[in-house]
């Protein structure tokens, strides 16, 4: 009985402090990443996906609301901004790849960004998804930090976008190479580009398993897709859905 009381007191103290949920977030990710490494870096064991599931289950079991959780986790969340700025460095490093292929690459990325957004939004709309879902779904192929910014600017939900982006990444990494084989694409530059355009960082990790050339093209495609989308998608979404 006394022990129960003491534990209860500690819980009340801890759950009011941001440290608990900050620690929980990092610990869940470290564990998820360990499982991911052990699986041989299979996209299905993506550490973001599994840590989100684990954390949501823990929060629901302990009846903690998202605001309380975020009060702690925001210290991790805050680093997204500087990390997004930092994406300029890999983009700059991979820019030499454009070289003599700049026209095919730019054309492909612009058209692919349009195809990926409109196909997803049209299918979901046809199946009766709500407006907020449609807006949050639109940047699904854009790297998560940028996609969340787009969703926020266009009146969608950044949280929902983050989850859909990760799911899209995993999907593309799992079925992407089979789709490319079905349309008889064998060039590693093209395979990398297609994985990066659709599946951003998770696709890029998969592309590096094909070859370094595929990985570099995927990273380039991910950066350019993020740029094109960040500057065009908020305007397009406001125009289509109003704001």
């Amino acid at each position, binding site marked *: 009985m006394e022990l129960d009381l003491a534990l209860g007191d500690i819980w009340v103290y801890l759950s009011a402090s941001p440290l608990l949920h900050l620690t929980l977030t990092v610990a869940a990710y470290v564990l998820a990443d360990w499982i991911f490494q052990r699986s041989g870096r299979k996209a299905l064991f993506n550490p973001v996906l599994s840590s989100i599931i684990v954390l949501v289950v823990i929060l*629901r079991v302990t009846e903690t609301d*998202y605001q309380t959780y975020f009060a702690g986790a925001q210290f991790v*969340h805050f680093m997204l901004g500087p990390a997004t700025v930092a994406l300029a460095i890999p983009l700059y490093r991979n820019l030499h790849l454009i070289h003599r292929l700049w026209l095919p690459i730019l054309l492909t990325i612009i058209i*692919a960004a349009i195809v990926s957004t409109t196909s997803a939004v049209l299918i979901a709309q046809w*199946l009766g998804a709500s407006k*907020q879902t449609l807006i949050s779904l639109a940047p699904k192929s854009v790297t998560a930090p940028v996609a969340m910014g787009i969703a926020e600017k266009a009146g969608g939900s950044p949280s929902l976008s983050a989850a859909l982006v990760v799911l899209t990444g995993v999907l593309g990494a799992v079925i992407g190479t089979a789709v490319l084989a079905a349309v008889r694409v064998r060039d590693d530059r093209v395979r990398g580009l297609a994985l990066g355009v659709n599946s951003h960082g998770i696709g890029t990790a998969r592309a590096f398993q094909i070859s370094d050339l595929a990985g570099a093209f995927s990273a380039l495609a991910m950066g350019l897709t993020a740029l094109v989308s960040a500057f065009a998608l908020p305007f397009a979404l406001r125009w289509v859905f109003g704001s």
Partner: protein
Amino acid sequence: MPLKFIALLLLCQLLGEVLVVWSSQPIPGPVVGLVLLFFGLGLRGGIPEGLGRVVDGLLAHLSLLFVPAGVGVMLHIAMLREEWLAISLALVLSTVVTIAVTGVLMTALIRWVERRRGEH
């Protein structure tokens, strides 16, 4: 860890946010910061070695950084129960279409560029 490079990243983000607010355009501020840093590197003609190291450290665990926001899906569980089919089909079909179109288009365009170069 050289603090001046952290300051540089924050400064680019801050300038990006200021530009976005000032121009009242719906573009994410950090992306404008990315573009500013990118052009800065172009003007300088390369990446300072220390900056490269700081950024590699920061980006090595980039995916940890969007876990807190991702956990926010718990706010949408009721909606997901209603719309899971629409969302799943949209994600799967759109992924197949996007990857196939990208693959075919890029292959055709590379061939076109190489043929044109062969003629000249």
